């Protein structure tokens, strides 16, 4: 089960991508009411994902590797940027500002993709390697969020 953490969190990334794409589709069809709900669903999924990492994975990783100011710290900083963008995206959807919405969704998507890529290519691989013996326990805890 050494790949457990990376598989679970990578699938979680894809799930969030799909939800964002759905919200974009609804805005492009000018179904703003449904779009607001879709953004909320996306926002919830994204916040949960960030918490899974910040509350469960990162502390375990830092404890095991003693890398406190390393990759996890960079990821936390980028999470703050994600939170800010998601908040602005929700506001743009609720005031039905299509142009602003697509500007923010594009920004969020590109930013999140480069962030995800770094996590998937490196951090999750390192987590699989260092936390392999407790990966099932970590994934179970993350699923509870």
């Amino acid at each position, binding site marked *: 089960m050494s790949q457990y953490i990376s598989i679970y969190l990578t699938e979680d990334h894809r799930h969030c991508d799909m939800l*964002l794409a759905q919200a*974009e589709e609804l805005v492009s069809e000018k179904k703003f009411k449904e779009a607001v709900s879709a953004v909320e669903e996306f926002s919830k999924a994204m916040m949960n994902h960030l918490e899974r990492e910040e509350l469960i994975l990162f502390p375990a990783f830092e404890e095991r590797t003693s890398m406190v100011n390393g990759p996890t710290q*960079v*990821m936390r900083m980028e999470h703050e940027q994600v939170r800010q963008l998601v908040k602005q995206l929700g506001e743009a959807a609720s005031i039905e500002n299509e142009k602003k919405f697509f500007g923010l969704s*594009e*920004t969020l998507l590109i930013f999140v993709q480069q962030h995800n*890529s770094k996590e998937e*290519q490196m951090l999750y691989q390192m987590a699989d390697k260092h936390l392999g013996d407790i990966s099932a326990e970590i994934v179970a805890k993350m699923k509870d969020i």
Partner: protein
Amino acid sequence: MNTSSLSLDQGPNISVPFRFFYTAPLFFIFFAIALFFTPIDVIELRFNSQTVSLVHLFTLGVLTLIMFGALFQMLPVLIGVVVGGNIVVVWFIYLLLLFGIPLFSFGLYSQIDILMLIGTFSVAIGIFIFLVNISIDVFKADRKGKSVPLMQVSIASLWMALLLGVFISLGRIGIIEIESYEALSNFHIVIALFGWAFSLIVSVSLSIVPMFYVTPEYTPSCRRAIPFIIIGALFLFAVLFFLYPSLSIVAEFVITQGILMYAYQTIKRLRRRRRKIPDVTVSYWYTSMLTLLLSVIFWWIGYIEPLFFTLSFISFSIGFLGSLLQGMIYKIIPFLVWFHLSSSGKWDIPTIKEIIDEEDMWVQLRLYQLFIVLFLLSFFLPLIKIVAASILAISSVSLLINMVSGWKIYISIR
């Protein structure tokens, strides 16, 4: 495992990729001017000095500069390798290319050997330093990464293309003697275009198409098959080239399979993308894939009518590579401007879509598409070539203006 890319410095300084990106449209403009003044019947002669000069003005001045800039920026994200950290080295590479490419091209165009010689060494040293800087890290990278195997093929091919290029250039000047100039040049062309450029594009595509457009991932079998075919084709081509040159058509057939598979899989994914919103860069990708397919068709028609070999080369380099790299620039520049501003703690900043005007990018895309069509037609209607070159000049100026608008935003807010 390389963890340095996840340090607090998340990538190179913004000036590193931008320096290369913003210089490329200038070479595009020089290329358009040279094209304007070069008769079409001269361009048809593949090994004519003026044609070779034009080719290098484009392949080195436009394609290589953009690819170097993109590699400096994307290697940390794609394969976990940080390059471009040493600004002095980056400046050195940049200045050598900036100085060497026009000198080499002009020397070749006007057959002034000393300019060509200085240009050759300047460009060669620039590329050499670039390769020395990234090769060890690229070859040490974990091959499980989607982009890693083909990235390694690409870098190995650039080494080979560089050595061959210097050798051919010295032969052309008359410093060394080359018996089979045309055969070696053909080898250089295949290694540079297919080995270096195509492998790099495919390697990057496997990661960024699903990432940026939310498409289905390339299937694991596809991710294995495409590199396998490309590496196999290059190996076969090299073996046949040296041992059984008359059978090189077999390697060309394998290369065709690799190209078709990549184009088909990429178009399929773009058509099934979850993000259906209009995006100029998607249209750039389609233009790129369609001209790639066209280059394959032209290649095989070339066995009936040799002019089509030239059209295949144009369709591949100017159509496929040129379009795709411009599309990438329109994705990367707005992101970098936004990313560097937001990372410095500024939040009241334009979104990625507001950094370069969408309408202006569409206009520039249409101009470039028109140029490709007219340039290909000009081999049948030579008078059109002047119009094609003029449109390319306008398209290139427009590209530069669009890019500068992004830079202005960065400067005004930072």
